[in-house]
């Protein structure tokens, strides 16, 4: 509940400041971005194993269908809402500021099929990034 309140307060602040700070990463050829406020920590896979974190592969959690992903530089994102639970991501790239003005909803046709927890898109250096909800 506290995490949810944190998130709501953050969202209000983000909207006021007009931007959110995101971590970008890549899975296969797809680019993703997640709000830093949803992340507790970004750690190596070995560290996650040592801490006995419950880790799921990104493509399984986000239901990619039958795409097999070969991870190049895997890392584990620990969620703020459940610090012992993580998601395996690949090619974590950079932390950047995304202006709310540059966030676009998913096109209606794509939204119809409700891709799991992708809540929007943004353009960073003319590349499309999917904004995801880690919670």
């Amino acid at each position: 509940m506290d995490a949810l309140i944190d998130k709501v307060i953050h969202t209000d602040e983000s909207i006021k400041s007009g931007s959110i700070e995101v971590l970008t990463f890549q899975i296969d050829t797809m680019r993703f971005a997640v709000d830093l406020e949803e992340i507790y920590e970004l750690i190596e896979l070995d560290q996650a194993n040592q801490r006995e974190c419950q880790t799921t592969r990104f493509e399984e959690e986000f239901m990619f269908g039958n795409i097999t992903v070969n991870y190049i530089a895997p890392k584990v994102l620990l969620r703020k809402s459940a610090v012992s639970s993580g998601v395996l991501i690949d090619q974590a790239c950079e932390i950047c500021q995304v202006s709310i003005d540059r966030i676009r909803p998913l096109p209606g046709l794509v939204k119809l099929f409700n891709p799991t927890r992708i809540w929007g898109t943004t353009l960073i250096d003319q590349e499309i990034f999917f904004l995801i909800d880690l919670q």
Partner: protein
Amino acid sequence: MPSKKKSQEILEAIEEKQSETVANKNQTTIKLVIFTILNSYYAFRGESIKEILPAAKINRVPGVPNFILGIINVRGDIESVININNFLGLAERGTGTEKNIIIAEGEGVRSGILVGSVEDVMDFPENSIQPPLSSLNDKIKQFVIGETDYKEQSVTVLNVREIFKNILAN
């Protein structure tokens, strides 16, 4: 009997031509956007088409059906792109040489459609559109308005609204 004056013949010819033009103007025409898919001609009615774009990098979207190829950036806005091949009973994958994306709207849906290349946008007399071939199977026939001719080849006129309706229903 004296022959008609040359001037009179000319005037009559002009009059005849003008009356033909009036008749043509009264004939209902429809605008068709003609394009290719796998070397065959297809067309959409112009009123459903919002934009014709050169093919751009399509970004795959996880967790959506195969006919949604992905999304594209159109001047900072995001549009979906679909592959209509499987609606038309064609090979699911194109040749990889697709040159255009047609942005279409209908039934409250707006999406890009990947095609080989857009060949022409032109007016056709409505009565030049013949009913679909009876040999077409029912699955495809539901998306076909009719057939017409372009450059001495058959053009299948598709109903993009029916394609979108089918997507919504499933």
